[in-house]
């Protein structure tokens, strides 16, 4: 793996922009996003359409064909992602960084057993015998708290529940031991207890392997309880960047509004506050919108 001095960030993003060409004109999905990422859990939150997924996809080089990416800097472990050849991408994507999607149904191959898929994911990046890859895959299934790995190894994706499918996805993405995982709403389709159990597995892996995690979600309270730092996105821009533990002290009226409009279990109110959008949020700095 790339040798890292502890001071160098894992990922550097400066002025990232993603434009799409559509028959109706240009769509600016991401407008000048900047952040650096160390070995931490970074949450990206915002409403649907705010550009969270497109940010993740741009980092992984997965932007759709009608999209164009520009950035002053887009560097991962010191390597410029904007100038990678397809061959170089293959050595990065899946091996050193990978993505967990919301719905395992679209990411798992329906006609291949779970075990074979995990084995394949491993052997794409490691030259080992089939027998050793199998042992690795079983260990990884156990690692994501699957109780009977041997049995699950031989099942097909449609035979497992949503929570189990998501654990399998995580096993598949983690087995090559990437340094960065981008998880795009990985638990939004799951029931609340299963969701937390899946997050606990990710949490263990981040701690034990020193992996970095970008956790994309629309669930602000969940992100603040799980991540170290939060980027709040609004219409393609980061409008606030804060420590998760300081969410209650958020300054941007959009962040405050998103928190305020949630019904609270321990606090009964007749009417919920609604979000009053200010046109200044689209371009203004935090200082400008709080003035």
């Amino acid at each position, binding site marked *: 793996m790339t040798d890292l001095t502890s001071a160098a960030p894992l990922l550097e993003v400066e002025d990232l922009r993603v434009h799409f060409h559509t028959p109706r004109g240009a769509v600016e999905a991401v407008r000048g996003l900047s952040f650096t990422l160390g070995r931490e859990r970074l949450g990206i939150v915002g*409403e*649907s359409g705010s550009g969270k997924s497109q940010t993740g996809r741009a980092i992984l080089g997965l932007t759709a064909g009608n999209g164009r990416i520009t950035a002053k800097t887009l560097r991962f472990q010191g390597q410029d992602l904007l100038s990678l050849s397809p061959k170089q991408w293959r050595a990065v994507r899946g091996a050193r960084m990978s993505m967990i999607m919301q719905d395992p149904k679209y990411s798992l191959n329906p006609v291949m057993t779970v075990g074979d898929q995990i084995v394949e994911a491993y052997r794409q990046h490691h030259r080992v015998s089939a027998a050793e890859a199998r042992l690795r895959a079983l260990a990884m299934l156990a690692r994501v708290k699957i109780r009977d790995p041997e049995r699950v190894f031989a099942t097909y994706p449609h035979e497992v529940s*949503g929570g189990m499918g998501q654990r399998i996805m995580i096993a598949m993405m983690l087995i090559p031991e990437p340094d960065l995982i981008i998880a795009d709403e990985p638990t939004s389709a799951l*029931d*609340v*207890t299963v969701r*937390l*159990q899946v*997050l*606990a597995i990710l*949490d263990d892996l981040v701690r034990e392997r020193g992996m970095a995690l970008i956790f994309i979600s*629309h669930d*602000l*309270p*969940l992100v*603040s*309880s*799980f991540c170290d730092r939060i980027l709040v996105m609004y219409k393609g821009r980061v409008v606030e960047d804060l420590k998760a533990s300081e969410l209650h002290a958020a300054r941007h009226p959009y962040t405050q*509004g*998103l928190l305020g*409009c*949630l*019904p*609270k*279990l*321990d*606090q*009964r*109110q*007749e*009417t*919920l*506050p*609604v*979000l009053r959008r200010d046109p200044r949020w689209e371009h203004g700095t935090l200082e400008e919108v709080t003035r």
Partner: protein
Amino acid sequence: MSGAVLQAVPGTGIDVSGLNVWFGDHQVLHGVSFSVPEGGALGLVGESGSGKSTVLRALCGLVDQWSGALRIDGAELGKTRSRGFYRVVQMVFQDPFASLHPRHTIDRTLSEPAQVHGLDRVEERVVTALEQVGLDRSFRFRFPHQLSGGQRQRVAIARALMLEPRVLLLDEPTSALDVSIQAEVLNLLKGLQRDLGLTTLMVSHDLAVVSHMCDAVAIMNRGRILETIAAEDLAAGRVDHPYSRQLLRASSGFDRAVIDSFVDWE
């Protein structure tokens, strides 16, 4: 225990007693009982597959194999629902995209139920229903794809209101919406509940949403109601069943100690 928190006056509201439902050999509801007084609101909460939607579908006559007694305003429901049933009971579903016809204008979507039921002053009713959900007249001749998710859900609610029902069955009406839009739709529903005196049965997987909207919440697990809790008790954390306690603790975010204490209820 269930049903004790909210008590309907006999002959009014919703009364479900000993409801069993089967799909083939698979029994998915086991003796579900509860009642909602006229003008009251009950929430049904539970994980996916626990049977929440099936309760609503049984009330609407959309399941074939069931036993038990279902009463609306004291009248026992049989195997099929009459046209008159839908003048009293209306349902709103989770996905406003799937529930609106993509090639019908909003005007047509709203007019149709009134025409089917032979009501007069259809145009006036359409305008009133749109006003009730906070949409102006300019929306009448738009199509669903020209509306945002929140606007589509308002249209679905307006359609339910066209027949001036007394009972509203809501199945995850805001689960597909952003929280800012959810707040607007919940405020709208709560206002309608209050102003029109609607009797409401609301299904959700979100404890905070149902306890905000309802007087009491029934906790469902694997086709059974475990307990029914008054909203104030839920807010204060006063629950009896260990499963309810687990759901409640899980609703407060990521906490390793809490997660490690989870028991599998399958």
